[in-house]
């Protein structure tokens, strides 16, 4: 794993995501720290106030049991206790004359008109006799006396400063660690993805054998790699199939083309008389027609395979189509003394392409007639089965061996026995294509003897 990401950091989606996360995370941590700081500050302030309140309470508790001339003494005693040495206080008489205290100057704010009420808290204000800050409050005593009591700020501020600097330090450390982590993570993700990109590039230059390496960790990368590799396998299979089919097509078309060419070449020979020439030309035209038919059949198969004809599906009755096929081929069977019978249901309505289905059934019946010997029996049937409607053609020919049953649907495939009979080898290919277009299932079975060809159409649930 390389540390340095092969793409510029800002371009990487992972990096942008981590930066986004870092910022979000740092802001969250910052918010928490701010909250913590504010809470700490508030706690410390409350502590201050509590201490002041405690001293003030001591004073006000005892005021009523002590004559007013002793009040200064009481107040001094209270505030000069050792534990209160960080408190500040000042006592003013009803004329705002300073009596005693640590504050040298009366704080400037309006004199309250209220009479003294027990625990009457005035608004907390920061009073600042320089150079120190204190936080103090004004308490109204009986007879118009005013007591100011507070606590110095400096200790609290010192503590708060330490806390604050610690928090900021922590925040900075968080930011640094997060960024480093982000870069590392980006590097890891990007380099992992580069492996995918490398293989893709290799495949595109033509090496279909390239596969994405998996680390065996079973993680999302491995799963993606596994799927992509299987996709490449599938592409390889398809390409081989295409190659095989085109090779077959080229090979099988060469023969009739060569024959045509030979005929035409023979025509150049002047020794033939007009009638012979004419006959040869007619046969040459027949050959080309045959070739054109083959090409048309190939194109039709391709068109069916492309699925585009599905958009033209309409409701039709399979029984009607099968009956039409029977009627078309019955004379052909009769010529070969074959007994062809048909058994149908009243109606078998599905959605499909009338012409394609007619063609498929016709090919099936045509095959049956071709392979059944003279006098043999052919049974055409359409019936309802559990999962749908089945159309079957049973002949009395030599059947198709189980090994060949899959291959017969390949383009141009001819079984050994039919190699010499006329035909392009595309008939069954088209049948298979039409079946697939209609979502129907094909089965080749043993008619004992002969072939039982069944196509099952599924009823839409």
């Amino acid at each position: 794993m390389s540390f340095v990401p092969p793409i510029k950091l800002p371009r990487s989606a992972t990096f942008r995501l981590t930066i986004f996360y870092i910022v979000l995370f740092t802001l969250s941590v910052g918010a928490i720290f701010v909250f913590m700081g504010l809470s700490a500050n508030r706690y410390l302030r409350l502590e201050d106030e509590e201490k002041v309140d405690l001293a003030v309470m001591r004073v006000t508790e005892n005021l009523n049991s002590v004559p007013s001339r002793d009040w200064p003494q009481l107040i001094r005693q209270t505030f000069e206790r050792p534990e209160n040495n960080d408190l500040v206080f000042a006592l003013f008489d009803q004329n705002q004359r300073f009596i005693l205290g640590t504050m040298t100057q009366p704080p400037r704010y309006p004199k309250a008109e209220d009479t003294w009420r027990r625990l009457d808290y005035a608004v907390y204000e920061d009073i600042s006799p320089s150079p120190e800050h204190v936080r103090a409050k004004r308490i109204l005593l009986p007879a118009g006396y005013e007591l100011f009591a507070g606590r110095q700020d400096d200790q609290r501020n010192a503590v708060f400063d330490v806390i604050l600097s610690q928090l900021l330090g922590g925040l900075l450390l968080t930011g640094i660690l997060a960024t480093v982590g982000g870069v590392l993570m980006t590097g890891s993700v990007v380099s992992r993805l580069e492996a995918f990109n490398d293989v893709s590039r290799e495949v595109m230059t033509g090496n279909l054998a390239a596969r994405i390496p998996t680390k065996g960790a079973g993680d999302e990368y491995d799963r993606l790699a596994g799927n992509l590799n299987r996709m490449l396998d599938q592409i390889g299979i398809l390409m081989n199939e295409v190659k095989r089919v085109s090779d077959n097509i080229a090979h099988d078309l060469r023969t009739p083309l060569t024959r045509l060419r030979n005929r035409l070449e023979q025509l150049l020979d002047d020794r033939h008389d007009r009638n012979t020439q004419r006959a040869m030309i007619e046969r040459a035209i027949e050959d080309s027609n045959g070739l054109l038919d083959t090409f048309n059949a190939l194109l039709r198969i391709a068109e069916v395979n492309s699925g585009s004809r599905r958009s033209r599906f309409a409701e039709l009755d399979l029984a009607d189509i099968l009956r039409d096929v029977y009627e078309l081929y019955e004379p052909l069977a009769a010529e070969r003394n074959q007994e062809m019978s048909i058994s149908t249901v009243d109606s078998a309505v599905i959605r499909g392409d009338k012409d394609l289905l007619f063609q498929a059934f016709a090919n099936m019946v045509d095959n049956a007639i071709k392979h059944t010997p003279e006098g043999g029996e052919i049974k055409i049937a359409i019936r309802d089965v559990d999962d749908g409607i089945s159309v079957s053609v049973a002949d009395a020919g030599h059947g198709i061996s189980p090994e060949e049953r899959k291959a017969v649907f390949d383009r141009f495939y001819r079984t050994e026995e039919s190699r010499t009979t006329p035909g392009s080898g595309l008939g069954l290919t088209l049948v298979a294509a039409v079946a697939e277009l209609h979502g129907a299932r094909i089965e080749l079975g043993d008619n004992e003897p002969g072939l039982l060809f069944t196509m099952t159409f599924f009823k839409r649930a």
Partner: protein
Amino acid sequence: MRVLIIEDDAEVANFISKGLQESGHLALHVADGKEGLFTAASDEFDVMIVDRMLPHVDGLTIIQTLRASGNDTPALILSALGDLNDRVKGLKAGGDDYLVKPFAFSELLARLEVLLRRIRNTAPDTALRVGDLEMDMLSRRVTRAGRHIDLQPREFRLLEYLMKHEGQVITRTMLFENVWDYHFDPLTNVIDVHISRLRRKIDKDFDRPILHTIRGAGYVLRAAD
């Protein structure tokens, strides 16, 4: 006949017009859709051959426009391999026949001649006659030289079509489309067998055959002269 060919592929157009000229017809070739529409609208032709894919105005639009303006010239639509079997669309647009490339010239010619001599009758024929072969449409009876011939329904339809196109070459594909109503490429020439059967019934026991095979093209019903 005067034939207008609207086709942008020069080779195909050449092939068609040469063949037509050799058969004794007059062919005018236009390679552009717009020009084709103009020519068809401003001149008299017996039949048109219109390719679907054309520059500027496509074939179906040409036909639709002509039909909308009252021009009834029979039109045969040529279509390239891409739109195999868009027959219905072509016929709906006002075309009279539909042929997919590549086609054999004999097929094209046969279809053109059928188009040309199509009699626009609103009243159906009550009886058809070719030579001494007679078909009564009302009673569905066929006789030849006075002798009754027993035909099955499909054979009747086949003979009816051939008689309606007396003297014209009918290709196997045309028979499939018109007598069987399917667009279909048979593996074996199963139509030939139907024709043989029909021939056995209407020709075999009579002195002069009227159902002839034209090699490489199709069949024709013609009273011998």
